[in-house]
C-alpha cells in the first residue's frame, strides 16, 4: 500500500488522538507529522494491519517524552506535580446535580464545570474543548434551564 493511501486512511484518527492529548492544533499537527514521518521511514517493515495502532503509539510515546522534557526543564513545575488528592464525595446538592442531573449529557456537565467552577470564559471553554462559542453558549443555556427546574431558582 502506498504511503499516501495510508496517510489518507489514518490521518484523521491520528490527528484527533493527538489533539485529545494536547488540545493544541499546532502541537497535534506536529505529533501527527512525526508519526507519519516515522511511518514513511519504516514503510518497508510495517505491516499495514498494525495501523493505526502503530501510528497512535508513536504519538503517545512522543507525548510521553515531551512530558518528561517538560518536567525536567521546568524542574517539576507546579503543573507537573500538583498533589493528587481524592475528591471528597459530593457535599452539596449542586455538585450532585452537576454529576447526576437528569437530562444532562457529558458535554453539558463539562461546560457547567468549566464555566462556573473553573471560572473560564466561553471563549476559553471553546478553545479548550474545540466546541464553537455558539455551542458552548447553547450547552450552558440548556444546562441552566435544567438547573432552574431542579433547584427552583431564578424563577420569578
Amino acid at each position, binding site marked *: 500500500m502506498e504511503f499516501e493511501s495510508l496517510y489518507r486512511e489514518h490521518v484523521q484518527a491520528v490527528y*484527533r*488522538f493527538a489533539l485529545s492529548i494536547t488540545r493544541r492544533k499546532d502541537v497535534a499537527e506536529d505529533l501527527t507529522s512525526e508519526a507519519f514521518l516515522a511511518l*514513511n521511514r*519504516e514503510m518497508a517493515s510495517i505491516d499495514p494491519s498494525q495501523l493505526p495502532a502503530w501510528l497512535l503509539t508513536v504519538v503517545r510515546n512522543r507525548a510521553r*517524552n*515531551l512530558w518528561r522534557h517538560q518536567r525536567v526543564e521546568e524542574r517539576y513545575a507546579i503543573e507537573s506535580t500538583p498533589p493528587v488528592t481524592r475528591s471528597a464525595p459530593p457535599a452539596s446538592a449542586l455538585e450532585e446535580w452537576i454529576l*447526576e442531573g*437528569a437530562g444532562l449529557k457529558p458535554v453539558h456537565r463539562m461546560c457547567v464545570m468549566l464555566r462556573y467552577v*473553573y471560572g473560564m470564559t466561553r471563549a476559553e471553554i471553546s478553545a479548550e474543548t474545540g466546541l464553537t462559542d455558539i455551542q458552548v453558549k447553547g450547552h450552558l443555556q440548556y444546562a441552566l434551564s435544567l*438547573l432552574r427546574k431542579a433547584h427552583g431558582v431564578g424563577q420569578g
Partner: protein
Amino acid sequence: MSQPRDDWDDEERDALDGLEGELAGIRRRHADDPSLALLRAAAADALPPDEQARVTRHLQDSAWSRALVDGLGEAGANDRLDADSEQRLFERIMREARPAAPERVAPRPAALRPRWRPAMTFGGLAVAATLLIAVVISRSGPDATPAPGAAPSGGGEPAAAGTPAPAPSAPVRIAFIKPEVRLSPSALTWRGDPSANPFLRELAPAFDAYRAGDYGRAVAAFDRLATVYPDSIDVRFYQGVSRMLAGDEAGAIAPLEAAARLGDATFADDVSWFLAVAQQRSGRPDARGRLVELCRGRSRHAAAACAALTQIDPAPALPPRR
C-alpha cells in the same frame, strides 16, 4: 481555580442566584485535583509511568474528574483536520521525508518543545484548574485498578527497527472507568410522572447496589430485571457493565450485545465502548476491529479507543531517537 467571573450574563446570574456558596465549596473541594492537561494526557496513557499511575488512580476515585473527562471526549468527537489542513500536512510530511538522510528526517524535538510547553503550562489554568479525560488504559483488574506489579506500558522509545516488540509481561486488559448512572429519556418519561413510574421503582434497588459498588447484588438485580424488561436499554447496559465490574467480562458481552441491538442513540457510544472492552478482556479477536472502528469514528470514547489500541497492538519498531 478561578473565582466567579464578572462576565456572567443576566441569565447566568439569575440561574445561579443563591448558589454562590455551593459553587465556592465545589471549587475548594477540587482545588487540588490534577490539572486539565494532566487529565487529558492521562486519558490517552500519554504520561510518564509514575504520573500516569497517579492520575489514573485519581480518575478512578473522582466522579468529578471522570465527568469532566467524559465531556471532553464528547466535545472532541467531531475534531477533524479540514481538507486543506490534511493536504498541507501531507505536503509538509513529504517535504521533510524527501531527504532520505536519517539525520535530516529525524523529528525535531527542539522545534516541537516550545509549542508544547504552553500547552502543558496551560496559561492561567495551570495553577488552578483540574480535570479531564475519559477512560484510561492500563493493565488492570476488573475494577480498572492496575494489577499488582503491572507497570503502565510504554514510557520509553519504541524498540529498534526490526526488533520484535517485547512480549508483555501480563495480558493487556483495557481499563475502564465505571460509568455514572444515567437513565434513557424513555425511562424518564415512562408513564409520565417519575415518582409514579413502576419501572423506575424497580430499577432503584439495582442502581443502589451499583452505586454502592455491590456488583454481585447489582448483577442479580439487573439479571432479574432483564427477564421483565428485555428491551430496556437501561437494564441491558447496566446489566453488562455490572457484570464487567464483577469481573465477568465474558458474561457481560451478551447483555451489551443486546443493548447494541436496541439501537438507543443515547447509549450508543457507551454500549460500543464497553462492548469493546468486554470483548478485549475476554480475549475475543473481534475486539480489535471494534476498537479501530471506535478510534476512527466520532464516539466520545474515540480517544480512549485509540489509546487502547496502543496498548493491545505491538509497539512500533523504530530506530532509537537521537
